[in-house]
């Protein structure tokens, strides 16, 4: 905790910054390693390391090909995508909370999750595209359509930058989400049998089982790009502390920053939702947990949020695979089931500290 006090303004000297970065990387790698080892079949860390050496550096350790396959094709990809999702959703939530000055904002506020489910249902239940379109593509298109609608509605109804606009986005998001959720229910009740409905339900609650290297190739660049854009705006986000007008008075081009960050958060969320379904809780609560730990200055808060989100989701994925023997629980169930009490604990502790 000592360096938390020294770097009070959140902008640390380069040396300490690099040290923090290394520490974060170490935590992340340790979490991922644990995530790869633990599972239905336990795999010793040496095997994991040797597999990585074989694949990455052409080392030639003799390994059980089954173990090697599990590590390389299943567990590693899952861990990477889980980390991306955790970081991406949590930072999206943080950015929206800061921009809209609303503690309850989360990435699904913009209609993205509702739109994705409609898209997914259209493809899988109503048979849109006749098999040519994947569930993910349908979900992505739905998410974009819903976000477009919400953004247009917010613009038509408020437009002006500032507090007013923030309120309009929240309201437009609620309206858009309700509309698309109703559409989803409508399609399911019209044409789905109970088996299909269950499948959709499962998908919506988040599911990392189908994740392979292809998904890694989409999630990693998208989340990295988003993190870079958001990290470039940490000072601007600080300036929003006293509202959008105050940010404008501090020289922040409010509309441009709002548009750019909301767009980036929405796109990243849409991509992630279309890969793994809408995992709840992360985007809403991780930023708050991070605030308790490192304070409200974004230069520290944003990296902390990304790291906690990533580690949290890797852990949640492990739990979802191991909690009930022989069955994989939807990860969204775990994030809420484990995350809510953990968050309650942080809430209570922070009170005592004050």
């Amino acid at each position: 905790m000592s360096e938390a006090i020294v770097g009070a303004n959140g902008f640390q000297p380069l040396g300490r910054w690099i040290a923090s970065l290394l520490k974060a990387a170490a935590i992340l790698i340790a979490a991922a390693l644990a995530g790869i080892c633990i599972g239905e079949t336990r795999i010793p860390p040496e095997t994991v390391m040797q597999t990585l050496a074989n694949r990455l550096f052409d080392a030639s350790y003799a390994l059980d090909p089954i173990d090697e396959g599990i590590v390389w094709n299943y567990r590693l990809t899952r861990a990477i995508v889980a980390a991306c999702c955790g970081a991406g959703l949590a930072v999206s939530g943080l950015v929206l909370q800061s921009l809209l000055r609303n503690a309850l904002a989360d990435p699904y506020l913009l209609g993205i999750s509702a739109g994705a489910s409609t898209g997914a249902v259209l493809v899988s239940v109503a048979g849109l595209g006749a098999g040519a379109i994947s569930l993910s593509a349908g979900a992505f298109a739905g998410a974009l359509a819903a976000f477009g609608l919400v953004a247009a509605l917010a613009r038509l109804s408020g437009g002006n930058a500032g507090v007013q606009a923030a309120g309009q986005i929240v309201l437009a998001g609620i309206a858009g989400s309700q509309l698309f959720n109703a559409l989803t229910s409508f399609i399911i009740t019209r044409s789905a049998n109970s088996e299909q409905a269950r499948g959709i339900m499962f998908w919506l609650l988040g599911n990392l089982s189908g994740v392979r290297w292809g998904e890694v190739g989409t999630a990693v660049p998208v989340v990295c790009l988003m993190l870079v854009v958001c990290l470039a705006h940490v000072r601007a986000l600080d300036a929003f502390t006293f509202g959008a007008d105050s940010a404008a008075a501090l020289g922040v081009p409010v509309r441009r920053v709002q548009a750019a960050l909301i767009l980036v958060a929405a796109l990243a969320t849409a991509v992630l939702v279309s890969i793994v379904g809408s995992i709840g809780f992360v985007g809403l609560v991780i930023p708050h947990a991070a605030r308790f730990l490192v304070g409200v200055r974004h230069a520290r808060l944003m990296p902390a949020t990304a790291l906690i989100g990533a580690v949290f989701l890797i852990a949640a994925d492990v739990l979802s695979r191991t909690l009930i023997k022989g069955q994989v629980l939807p990860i969204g169930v775990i994030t809420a089931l484990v995350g809510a009490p953990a968050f309650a604990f942080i809430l209570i502790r922070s009170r005592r500290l004050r």
Partner: protein
Amino acid sequence: MILSTHDLGWSPRRGEMIVRNLDIAVREGETLGLVGPNGSGKSTLLRLMAGILTPSRGDVRLGGRSLRAMARREAAQSIALVEQHADTEDRISVRDAVEIGRTPWLSALSPWSAADDAIIDDALRAVDLEPLAARDWTTLSGGERQRAHIARALAQRPRVLLLDEPANHLDIQHQLSILDLIAGLGLTTIIALHDLNQVMACDRIAVMHDGRLRALGPPKDVLTPFLLAEVFSVGVAILSDPEDGTPILRFKPL
């Protein structure tokens, strides 16, 4: 002529002009008091001058250059605004809140430095908030928040300071000390005030009425019983301080 407005007018997107035909030239180093009844357009004028609102008509010029032609960041390096209502629920420390005032001066190429720390120290000292620097914003009293806002504006190191009723919430001692502090800064200052006796200390005052500029000039010339009756609908007796002869306004219902 550091800050000037030229036929300035503003209206919401669909609506009537809320302020109009404003021609005000603020001189370098002067303190301009802004008075007028509730809803007369003082805050709107200050927000236009700060560049937060874009004029619907005319323009605001800083040193002769239109704010429209300036990047927001550049304007913010010269003009700071203390808003009438600005608050946060974040658990941010007072010092962090003041540090946010450095935003227009920082970039990837000019990161936070020891000089910035010194500026923050000065700003906190100026408003007497050093002892509270580590406190949570949400635990501050209304007056302490107001002083922290002023410190944030000072941390911006502006040439022009715009203050929207900065004496609100302050006890009388801090009202006087803030006004004293502002007078001692030597900055060009435009300050909206409701206390017409405090306005007496300004170099000039501008009287707003129904979105228009009703009068502009030295306090003694402007605040006549006739104008006060017309703009504020009050009667006034002008007394004078036996010590130094400063006029004191005593108000009565008309």
